[in-house]
């Protein structure tokens, strides 16, 4: 996936005091692409956005827009518009003044500013609010004013710093789609910082997952969801169940040895660089199939664990079981409830079973983690 690099970052690093916040960020973003920077708090995603906006000067590396080095340009000379998490609307200006300020700075004639502000207001559903001050707006309206202010200057690149996190859950869902549709319609390049996995999945063309200031994986939503490059990405993308297995690669298959809770089995390698030894197996609760041990075992490529139901609950749509497998507990979903105490089999299909070489001393895993971002980007 080599891109011609409308916006490119190479070797960007940032330090805060003695803490390394970002390390070796290489990323190339195409024009019109919607990229989500996903990670838990403290992973450096907001720092990366601020490096792009010009509020933080990277300690190494460079940022280029259309092959022009902008690394050390001041924020006002970059043509990127940032929507702040706090919205940062100017409380002493009205909605119209907030939206029109960027145009006023550019010296656009007053009549044209008024026309463009009005157009922006109707685009964002803010009609009739032009004379209001931000304090008199609802959270959703403020968010749209902040977006309008950023879009009014016709930026080449739109930076979004968790702009949806201060909205209520219900509005947030519809705003996701509106924002995405708007970005597509305007053909703007957008970089969206979020810690919400689903938000990133729904909105982005490409997801960049950050872990401790490094790119853990970059790829399409489908890629990062179904082919996580590391145990961290798998866990972050919802594969919270973790078990330790042993196995060896043979041909195109990875043969898993029988263990205390599982029978021997094998799964296709599918290009994964797995070495013989202990592997960390991760899978999602919703990817499993539960069946009672008296039933005839279901068939299909994958692996089956045997255990006992410890608890069952109904979060909606399906029954969620806590299944005890020897020493560990996993979560597994099923269409029907199994009584606590009943013996069950847990089948994980091969394509939903993520395997990683877990043993820490093996250098292979750490290298694959560090380089995976580049490999996929």
């Amino acid at each position, binding site marked *: 996936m080599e891109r011609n690099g409308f916006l490119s970052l190479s070797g960007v690093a940032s330090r805060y005091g003695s803490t390394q916040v970002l390390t070796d960020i290489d990323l190339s973003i195409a024009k019109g692409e919607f990229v989500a920077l996903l990670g838990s708090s403290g992973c450096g995603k907001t720092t990366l956005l601020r490096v792009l906006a*010009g*509020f933080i000067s990277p300690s190494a590396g460079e940022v280029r827009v259309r092959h022009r080095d902008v690394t050390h340009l*001041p924020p*006002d000379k970059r043509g990127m518009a940032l929507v702040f998490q706090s919205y940062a609307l100017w409380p002493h200006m009205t909605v119209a003044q907030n939206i029109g300020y960027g145009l006023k700075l550019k010296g656009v004639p007053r009549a044209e500013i008024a026309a463009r502000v009005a157009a922006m207001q109707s685009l964002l559903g803010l009609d009739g609010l032009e004379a209001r001050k931000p304090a008199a707006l609802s959270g959703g309206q403020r968010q749209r004013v902040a977006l309008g202010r950023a879009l009014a200057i016709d930026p080449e690149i739109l930076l979004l710093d968790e702009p949806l996190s201060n909205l209520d859950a219900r509005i947030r869902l519809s705003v996701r789609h509106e924002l995405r549709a708007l970005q597509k319609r305007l053909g703007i390049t957008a970089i969206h910082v979020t810690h919400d996995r689903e938000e990133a999945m729904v909105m982005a063309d490409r997801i960049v997952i950050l872990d401790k200031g490094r790119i853990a994986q970059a790829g399409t939503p489908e890629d990062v969801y179904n082919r996580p490059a590391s145990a961290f990405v798998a866990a972050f993308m919802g594969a919270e169940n973790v078990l330790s297995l042993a196995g060896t690669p043979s041909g195109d298959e990875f043969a898993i040895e029988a263990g205390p809770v599982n029978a021997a089995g094998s799964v296709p390698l599918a290009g994964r660089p797995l070495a013989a030894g202990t592997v960390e197996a991760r899978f999602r609760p919703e990817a499993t199939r539960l069946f009672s041990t008296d039933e005839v075992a279901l068939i299909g490529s994958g692996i089956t664990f045997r255990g006992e139901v410890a608890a069952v609950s109904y979060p909606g749509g399906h029954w969620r079981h806590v299944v005890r497998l020897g020493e560990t507990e996993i979560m597994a979903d099923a269409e029907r409830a199994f009584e606590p105490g009943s013996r069950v089999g847990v089948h994980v299909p091969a394509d939903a079973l993520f395997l990683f070489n877990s043993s820490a001393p093996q250098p292979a895993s750490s290298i694959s983690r560090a380089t995976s971002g580049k490999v996929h980007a």
Partner: protein
Amino acid sequence: MTGPRNPLAALWWVPRGIIFGLMAFFIFGPLFNMLLWTVAEKWYFPYSFPLEYGFSSWAKVFAPRGGAVESLVNSLIVALLTVVVSLALAIPAGYALARLKLPLRSVILLAFLIPQAFPNLTVYVNIARIFYEIGLNGTIPGVVLVHVSHGLVYAVWIATAAFSAIDVELEQAARNIGAGPLRTFRDVTLPLAAPGLMASAIFVFLESLDEFTGSYFVGAPDVNMLPLLLYTAGAGGNYQIASITALLLLVPSLVFMLMVERFLKADVLSRVGH
């Protein structure tokens, strides 16, 4: 439905009335006494109220030779100049103290308190001596400088608080959308800090209007100010003139205190001195 009540509770208004009455007496008694003196023609012991009322003292004060008009004009000029000079220093200083991570921030803030830390007399006598040598004694700029040294602590502290109450992201939003640093300061920072700066201007103005010691040592006898007039009249036993002067000093104080109360919001007040 009222249940059985302690009969003593019904008498609660008595001590309350006495306490509020005493407070009112101590606050408004002297003020009322002062107001009476401004219109008293003849008033001596043992009479509780003036024997004759009239405005002859007002005529005397505002007569060309009374000196009150000159003192009033001097006081106002000095107070306004003090405000201008103090704010011209306090706006950049306050912004720097609020925004930049100066390592000595609290030390610098404390340094502005130093003129207040020593007895005024000692400080002003020495200032007077130095000013005399460089020809500033007995001039309006000299008095303004003394008042600035005194008023700067309020100006800088309040300005610092006013600027630190402004979220940095509001400035970053302006920078991001294309405003240079000066434009951002003019369009975003300054308007948002204006109420706090206004309050600091009023404090400085009132401090200057009231200031006696420095005005006396540096200004007198060439530059006469209202507090000096009040002092002279009071010391000479002329209570009518002293009271009228006091009233002239009191009115702007009251008006401005009401304004300060409007301008100084809790978010600024909570940051004073931090």
